[in-house]
């Protein structure tokens, strides 16, 4: 695949300019991808610190080192930061931007300037959210769901935080429409829909959800602001409004949003597993199809967040049924990944370890999701720590671990240097262990009846809370080791060649780090994304 031509300048030193302006005003998808990576990952670390604070508070019942009002603010900001500033924009913004255009053989996304504008909107939105923490009535204390009537009445700075989230949502919409257009219009010659890497398929499905669901969040957030500033009373029963309508509107977006979070992660796993099992992916068509099926069916299940809200029994039955329907495409993916592993020549390197733990943790998260999706069992565990545990298994054990997998798998490609393998594996082992201690305890606590978001709890819940908090420390230690090792490696580690893992997708056919235009000449695709022999990989 590689030719003896002199390597063209990589995207790091193409402009001859250095300094921050060569980044924050660049329209190169790789630079924007890295901008997204560092900004979203920075917010991830902020969210981690807030999460550790919450766990430290819950180490023992009663008044510990933060008061109840602070606790409310911390869990709200933890949720807002993690969801709206990391996990929704993170995967499409960072790895969607870095990888997707190269994987389809394109020079850039369809609208490069719009892409830069999206990142700016994200940063402006994040700045507004941060401003809301330190001005007005202080950080919001409503929980990340901003439920009325409390969000309409609390004296904290909800309006500004909501405006920030609105701006971030606009950025998400623009990223989505940019990616849909890119994948439709800019595929290289021979890159048929049946040859798209599965990561691209998942980004494609995600982009549609971003386009179709986010506007509803936009109008919902506008309605909260109107409720607070104009006193419209649309969700206030005293003036004829209905708070349940708020919940409907909120979840019409926010349930599809969890598929914005998990679909790209599934795409990463679908790309990593075959490479490290040295086998073509099993069931390519079904994995691609199930991404679209999840995106479509996932838009119709929002009501399962509202089983105890007073919604009609018919609605509960329908939403419960549809929730079970969504489990099918998710299970199709899991079975296909496992079948890909079957009789594969598996090499347990860091990206693969994170990917394998994704399968386990996501399966636990998904199956506990069915306990929540069944109307009867939901009543028992609704609003308990079971929900918190379930959610973190899917979002952290799922998307988070896939994000780490992607970091180890793809970032060396863009830096030209790689990390040390052993510390990466130690870090993975610590994180995996700590993760399960942390969140499995939460699910048990929830089954025993410990509510979520409560400042205090009964003494009988104390032992498991202690265990959970210790788990959070193990996880944090693993995270620190992973970050030190990874970033040390990226900046000062061993150089890597263009195809360190032996992948057959297009990003491994270009030099490391990729040149500005990605491809020296327009590529013509002659083989599928997992066709190793035709790609010339041993």
């Amino acid at each position, binding site marked *: 695949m590689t030719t003896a031509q002199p390597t063209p300048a990589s995207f790091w030193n*193409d*402009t001859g300019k250095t300094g921050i302006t060569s980044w924050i005003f660049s*329209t*190169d998808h790789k630079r924007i991808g890295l901008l997204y990576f560092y900004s979203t990952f920075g917010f991830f670390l902020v969210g981690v610190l807030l999460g550790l604070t919450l766990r430290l508070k819950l180490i023992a019942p009663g008044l510990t080192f933060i008061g109840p009002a602070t606790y409310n603010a911390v869990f709200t900001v933890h949720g807002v930061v993690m969801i709206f500033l990391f996990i929704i924009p993170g995967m499409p913004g960072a790895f969607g931007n870095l990888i997707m255009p190269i994987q389809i053989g394109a020079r850039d996304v*369809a*609208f490069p300037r*719009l892409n830069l504008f999206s990142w700016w909107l994200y940063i402006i939105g994040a700045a507004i959210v941060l401003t809301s923490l330190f001005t007005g009535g202080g950080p919001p204390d409503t929980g990340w769901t901003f439920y009325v009537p409390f969000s309409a009445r609390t004296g904290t700075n909800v309006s500004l935080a909501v405006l920030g989230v609105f701006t971030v949502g606009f950025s998400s*919409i623009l990223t*989505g*429409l*940019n990616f*849909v*257009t890119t994948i*439709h*219009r*800019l595929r290289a010659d021979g890159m048929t829909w049946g040859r798209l890497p599965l990561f691209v398929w998942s980004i494609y499905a995600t982009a549609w959800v971003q*386009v*179709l669901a*986010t*506007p*509803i969040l*936009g*109008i*919902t957030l*506008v*309605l909260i602001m*109107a409720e607070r500033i*104009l*006193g*419209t*009373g*649309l969700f206030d029963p*005293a*003036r*004829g*409004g*209905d708070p349940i*309508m708020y919940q409907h*509107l909120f979840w*019409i977006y926010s349930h599809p949003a969890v598929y914005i979070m998990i679909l790209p992660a599934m795409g990463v796993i679908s790309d990593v597993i075959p490479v490290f099992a040295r086998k073509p992916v099993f069931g390519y068509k079904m994995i691609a199809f199930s991404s679209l099926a999840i995106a479509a069916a996932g838009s119709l299940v929002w009501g399962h967040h509202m089983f105890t809200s007073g919604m009609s029994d018919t609605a509960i039955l329908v939403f419960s049924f549809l929730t079970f329907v969504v489990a099918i495409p998710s299970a199709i993916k899991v079975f296909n990944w496992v079948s890909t592993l079957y009789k594969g020549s598996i090499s347990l390197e860091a990206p693969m370890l994170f990917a394998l733990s994704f399968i386990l943790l996501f399966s636990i998260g998904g199956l506990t999701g069915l306990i929540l999706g069944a109307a009867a069992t939901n009543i028992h565990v609704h609003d308990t720590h079971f929900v918190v545990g379930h959610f973190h298994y899917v979002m952290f054990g799922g998307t988070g671990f896939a994000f780490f997998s992607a970091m180890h798998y793809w970032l060396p490609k863009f830096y030209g240097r790689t990390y040390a393998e052993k510390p990466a594996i130690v870090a993975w082992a610590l994180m995996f262990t700590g993760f399960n201690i942390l969140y499995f305890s939460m699910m048990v606590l929830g089954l025993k009846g410990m509510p979520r978001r409560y400042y205090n709890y009964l003494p009988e819940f104390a032992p498991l809370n202690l265990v959970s908090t210790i788990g959070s420390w193990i996880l944090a230690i693993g995270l620190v080791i992973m970050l030190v090792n990874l970033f040390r490696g990226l900046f000062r580690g061993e150089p890597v060649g263009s195809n360190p893992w032996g992948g057959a997708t297009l990003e491994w056919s270009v030099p490391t780090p990729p040149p*500005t*235009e990605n491809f020296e000449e327009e590529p013509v695709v002659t083989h599928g994304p997992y066709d190793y022999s035709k790609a010339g990989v041993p």
Partner: protein
Amino acid sequence: MNHAAHKDYGGAKLGMWLFLFTELLLFGGLFLLYAVYLSRYPHEFTAAGRDMHVGFGTLNTVILITSSLLAAMAVTAIQRNERRKVLFLLGGTILCAAIFLFNKYLEWSAEIGNGIYPNSPRLASGPPGESVFYSLYYLTVGLHGLHVLVGGTLLAVVAVRVKRGTVHSGDFVLLENGALYWHLVDLVWIFIFPLYYLIL
């Protein structure tokens, strides 16, 4: 970095259509609330709807449809490379937008003068359904008015580009997308007008 940018006409149109879908969904949330609250308060909605100023609504509908016609004619004119005509037609569209907003100002002033605005003492003492109707009315029409403002500004930017010659018969996708956006603004109003002024 700056290679001769290749223009992807189809891509630009596709992107714009996707964006228009998101705008429809944005208003969709408000129409959803309208549907739910109409079925809950049919009588209050009917009573409140009868008090709307149908004259203003009809006038504004005619103005918006005319403006959409002018915008569509501008797209045809640029394909024929008639730049003066394009500028004239775009000017007409923007003028219609301004008249629309001025009418809205008069209408809202009249309503507010009658003590009808969100959280007003008059609505607070009336039946709850009436308050919901007017809150939804102000939000939907207000959001639409904002879109009229944005659309008018967008068309003004396009007009400047046409004057400078950067938008011309060989490359007019910006004008076409601007006109598409303007048609969306028109289309949303076509739904707002009967829902609030006519059917009740």
